[in-house]
């Protein structure tokens, strides 16, 4: 079975490492981690992920900017994006049907179980 390719862009190295370890432990994913959004964009072009996990508040380009640039790229514009963010207010994502800016949003902290469930759903 082909492993699904996941790119995670988050300025917190602890997050990207943990997500990589957790997802790869399942044997179903190949994960690439990036801690700078500009490098994350380059990585996306080269790695051609099946799904991108995006932080929102990052020091160089914020998650919204990264999402917009992915959408402008002919090869990447169909790639599903999932926000993983500490910026959600209680109930904020729920109020928008779990979506922020047209993409599903998961609040930090979240359990491994929920994270994987959302990824699977958006890979379909």
């Amino acid at each position, binding site marked *: 079975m082909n492993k699904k390719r996941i790119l995670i862009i988050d*300025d*917190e190295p*602890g*997050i990207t490492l*943990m*997500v990589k*370890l*957790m997802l790869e*432990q399942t044997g179903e994913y190949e994960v690439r981690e990036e801690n700078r959004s500009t490098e994350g964009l380059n990585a996306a072009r080269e790695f051609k992920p099946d799904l991108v996990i995006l932080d*929102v*508040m*990052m*020091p160089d*380009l*914020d*998650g*919204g*900017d990264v*999402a*917009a640039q992915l959408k402008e790229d002919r090869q990447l514009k169909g790639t599903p994006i999932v*926000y993983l*963010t*500490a*910026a*959600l*207010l*209680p109930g*904020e994502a729920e109020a928008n049907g779990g979506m*922020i*800016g047209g993409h599903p949003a998961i*609040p*930090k*902290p*979240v*359990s*491994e*179980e929920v994270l994987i469930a959302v990824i699977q759903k958006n890979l379909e």
Partner: protein
Amino acid sequence: MSQQTAALIPGRDEGLQTETACGTPIEDRLLTAEGRLFQSQKELVAAMVVAENSHEELRQMQLQLIDAERMETAGCLGMGVAHEIKNLLAVLGFGIDYLSKSPASADPGIQSTLNIMRDSVKRGMVIVRGLVDFSAPRQLEFKARDINAVIESSLLLSKHEFVANHIVIHRELGQGLPSVELDDYKMSQVFVNVFINAAHAMSHGGRIMLRTYVLPSESAKNFSPAGGARIVAQIDDTGHGIPPDKLEQVFEPFFTTKPPGKGNGLGLSVVRQVVTLHGGRIDIRNREGGGVSVTVTLPERQPEPATACELPCGTGLHELAGPRHSEGVYHP
């Protein structure tokens, strides 16, 4: 008497002139003039008292403004801190989930260690939630509401605390009170916080006395920019009260006398912030017979536009919904 002061006293000059014109005996005229002078002095004193009261009111409002500004800064700081801590808690949470899958986690010692860590992450999140509640930008949605109904629904939300602490509720809720323009959700948060504080102060049982009424109009506190009445909700308890030297501090963020896990010291800061955003005021004092009395005074109407008001300091998330630009986004 200076010319200026004389001008302050109505009818003084013209009074003397008319008397002179009338040709009455000089003593009578002097007596009348003295009487008028006395009257004018009384008026002057009264005017000075009014001026002093407005001055005090102005001073209070200035203090509130300074406070609001301080809170605003604390709010922005709070959002930043919450964001950072949530990230760290996420790393710890993921780490715990990951380790729980390792074969080593079968060991009972490691299992209980992981459980304690999971609990601590949860407690960390409760604290962060309190902080976010206090700091988050939130649109207030003002709607005309029956204050008694807001109190009743807040009582329901706090019920478990009353049952656990054997607390009896007495109601003296005013009938036919004007409805108050308020944010339902936020205002019940106010009452729930106050109720829970009262319950915590009465762990061996006690009473909460609730009163709602319209503030008598002659009261100095009866200042309302948008007009209309001021409505008071008074919450009295029979608990252990607040040490007088701590009374000043209870509204400060993170001031608490409760053990860890029971209180974060954010309740009353949030309460005061919400009440201030409603153009109201909150007072807390010890009752003579013991216990605490909290009064929340709210204006009947909000100034136009009465629809929304927003706290500063965004999360940056709203940016994702519309056209993007990175201004207003928090960067650590």
